[in-house]
């Protein structure tokens, strides 16, 4: 029990760590190399059509003499329902759409991690929570990747949208009823799924998050410099504003960017699911950085109690993720409506089957059983490994949401995928550590600092 005695609230600075910087740079270089090799060695012809080049395919698809296949390979015009087994989404995509799909997976995943770290930050203010104060700077540092990840996301969506999204590919052709290839469902969605709304949304939403994040960050700096309760009180107001905007905007972003990958499909819980995935990942990232800084002798005010509580959060929200996962899966499986069930049908077959099970095992089964005991949550090594595994698991989750609907059989898990993941992870680590050096590690004038330093739950 740590209470009862006085704890000296000392300021700390993180001036960078050579080993960590080297590690992140190695990841970047290795990732870059693997990505380049992956691109160079990627099959440039389509696996299902050996011999014919993808360029030709593209032309064939645009050729007026050949009736164009719609998403489901369905020649029938005005067919309202998808057939039971949808056709491979990657059948007519050029080889480089695999590169685009990988950039989309990674940038979206890291946008989720950083924007949910920002959400966690705001949550501490609106919930009047004190215990996180000692590692508040770590939460702030995870948000540092938000602008870069967002810009990559925006760029890839603008450049690759017609190669990634079925709806965007046919959008410019303005098909009318009666024409071959006309898709009644997609045409009915064009009020939402159209390029102007799409690009507007993916630019404006992360921009607003970034601006509010910047405001919160500047208040944090001001608090360090001036003290007093003004920055704290202002932070509460900005956090409340952010949270309200965030819960609505992350829904829209998840519909625009990810749900529209399977443009015929819909699920009302989808935005909550994306939130859950991102929140667990953000908690894991925060925990890892806290554990790392502690292991090199920083964050002396962080005790086992804080680590324990972070463990509880990861445990609880892994269960929450599992709850949302089963809600979506069970209801769609049970009702067995063709429009909905094909989403899981694809993911339960062929090449996607292992990912489907890996997803649920890593993201629910492992944390549920491993983190159940008190000792596990207070064991930095174990908790750290679980956080790493979970970050990978939620990356797989995003991968499984993106790949089948964008590039289908074109997708692989090779050097390109591993390389791109390493590249993004390396950049994330590098930027996070860099942002940690830019300000003091202890929010010395935060009104809850003392309370947080004495944090002790007693159990």
């Amino acid at each position: 029990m740590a209470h009862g005695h006085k704890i000296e609230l000392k300021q700390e600075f993180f001036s960078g760590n050579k080993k960590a910087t080297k590690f992140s740079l190695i990841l970047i270089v290795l990732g870059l190399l693997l990505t380049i090799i992956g691109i160079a060695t990627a099959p440039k012809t389509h696996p299902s059509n050996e011999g014919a080049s993808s360029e030709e395919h593209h032309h064939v698809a645009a050729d007026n003499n050949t009736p164009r296949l719609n998403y489901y390979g369905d020649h029938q015009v005005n067919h309202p329902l998808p057939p039971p087994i949808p056709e491979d989404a990657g059948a007519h995509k050029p080889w480089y759409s695999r590169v685009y799909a990988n950039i989309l997976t990674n940038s979206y995943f890291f946008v989720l991690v950083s924007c949910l770290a920002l959400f966690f930050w705001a949550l501490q203010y609106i919930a009047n929570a004190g215990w996180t104060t000692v590692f508040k700077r770590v939460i702030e540092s995870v948000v540092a990747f938000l602008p870069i990840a967002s810009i990559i996301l925006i760029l890839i969506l603008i450049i690759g949208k017609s190669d990634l999204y079925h709806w965007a590919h046919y959008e410019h052709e303005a098909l009318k009823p009666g024409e071959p290839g006309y898709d009644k469902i997609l045409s009915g969605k064009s009020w939402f799924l159209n390029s102007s709304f799409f690009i507007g949304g993916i630019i404006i939403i992360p921009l607003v998050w970034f601006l509010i994040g910047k405001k919160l960050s500047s208040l944090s700096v001001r608090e360090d410099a001036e003290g007093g309760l003004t920055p704290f009180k202002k932070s509460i107001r900005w956090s409340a504003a952010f949270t309200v905007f965030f819960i609505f905007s992350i829904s829209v972003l998840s519909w625009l960017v990810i749900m529209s990958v399977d443009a015929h499909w819909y699920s009302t819980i989808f935005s909550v699911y994306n939130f859950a995935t991102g929140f667990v990942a953000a908690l894991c990232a925060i925990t890892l950085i806290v554990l790392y800084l502690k292991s090199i002798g920083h964050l002396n005010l962080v005790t086992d109690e804080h680590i324990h509580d972070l463990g509880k959060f990861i445990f609880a929200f892994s269960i929450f993720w599992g709850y949302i996962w089963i809600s979506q899966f069970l209801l769609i499986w049970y009702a067995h409506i063709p429009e909905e069930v094909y989403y899981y049908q694809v993911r339960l077959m062929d090449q996607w089957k292992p990912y489907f099970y890996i997803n649920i095992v890593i993201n629910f089964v492992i944390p549920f059983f491993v983190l159940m005991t008190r000792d596990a949550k207070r064991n930095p090594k174990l908790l750290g490994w679980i956080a790493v595994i979970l970050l990978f698991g939620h990356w797989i989750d995003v991968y499984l949401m993106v790949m089948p609907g964008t590039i289908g059989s074109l997708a692989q898990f090779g050097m390109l995928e591993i390389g791109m993941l390493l590249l993004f992870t390396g950049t994330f680590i590098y930027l996070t550590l860099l942002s940690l050096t830019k300000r003091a590690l202890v929010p010395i004038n935060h009104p809850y600092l003392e309370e947080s330093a004495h944090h002790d739950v007693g159990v």
Partner: protein
Amino acid sequence: MSHNITTIRPRLVTKDKSLADVSNEICRPIENKPSTTWKIGFTLAVIFFGLLAFTLALTTLVGIGTWGLNKSVQWGWDITNFVWWIGIGHAGTLISAILLLFRQKWRMSINRSAEAMTIFAVLCAALFPLFHMGRVWVGAYWVFPLPNAFGSLWVNFNSPLLWDVFAVSTYFSVSLVFWYLGLIPDIATIRDRATTKGRKFWYNFFSMGWTGSTRTWNRYEVVSLILAGISTPLVLSVHTIVSFDFATSVVPGWHTTIFPPYFVAGAIFSGFGMVCTLLIIARKVLNYEDYITIGHLEAMAKVLMLTGTLVGLAYITEFFVAAYSGVEYEQYAFLNRATGPYWWAYWSMMTCNLVAPQFFWMKWARTTPWFIFFLSIVVNVGMWFERFVIIVTSLHREYLPSGWALYSPTWVEIGIYLGTFGMFFTFFFLFAKFLPVINMAEIKTILKDSE
């Protein structure tokens, strides 16, 4: 517990209360003759309880034909009321278990009455499906997987309605045990203070030999922690499974994947609504304003604002996805909700649940008891309309227009609903008379604490 709490946090119990003050003030209603207010309220409640008995007897003797249900709208006020009461029954366990996990100490002065409310609300809720089954004398065991020798059919394990039977009954038993366990130290306190023979005997009987020794406290805390651990998944499972009753179907407006978390958020919302309604009166009548402070009301108002907005987010998501889905039945179901013959129910729901809680953005609204009371009534009304909208407007216009019908309740259905209020308040008044409304043992630990 953290011994170093920031001074800017408000105190949990205002005025400097001593341990004796707590016992004296909280035991006062139990150790004195009932007040006139109590007598009037109790009589009124019993009259409505009588109405419940009468209307249920009529339903049993004559049959479900006394209700306004028809072939299209087979679920009407009955299931609306069932879901409404079940939703209210969420706050108690939520406050004792989930707020415990989040270490919200302000829960301590409201958890006892919220748990009592939970138990009474679940009892009210259970009446509706039970009597809707028709022959209630067999319905009582039809729902359980008993051998065919009992003369009934084997239950359908694939049906979420059956899961509901298990979820609600488990939830009820665990909540009851949890509530009773928490009462034991307080019952023992009353026993020790008892001046009459009767009180001494009964409180001694129900205190189960509580001695207050370290050993008993130790066991008490272990069991509390285990029960809190069990209750947390239970409280989430109940409304999740209630939502499955609808969402596993293929009825437009019912089959939507967001239902489980959305129902849980709605249940927390309506549960807190009812807690505010009850406690704002109780703190005034029983003079507990130092225990259930403005700070408590403000925290509850914030929870109402948060969950109201979450429920609103779910409404908007549903509406959006219906439009986006491209399924015309889905689109029509939602259009029909907003503009069809039951448009007033839809817009009442929207106004009460999404718009009204937004007033709590103002500090004044969060700290003015009469205004919170008013809004808590609005929330109760809005959540009733939500269930009505989901159930009736989805059923009354089905896939085939030949099956379209309207529904309005008969006086029997209205009588049963009003009657459940009678039952609820009869139990609540008895609880307030014979048991401590605030957990004395817990509140004594936080007299000097801040939030």
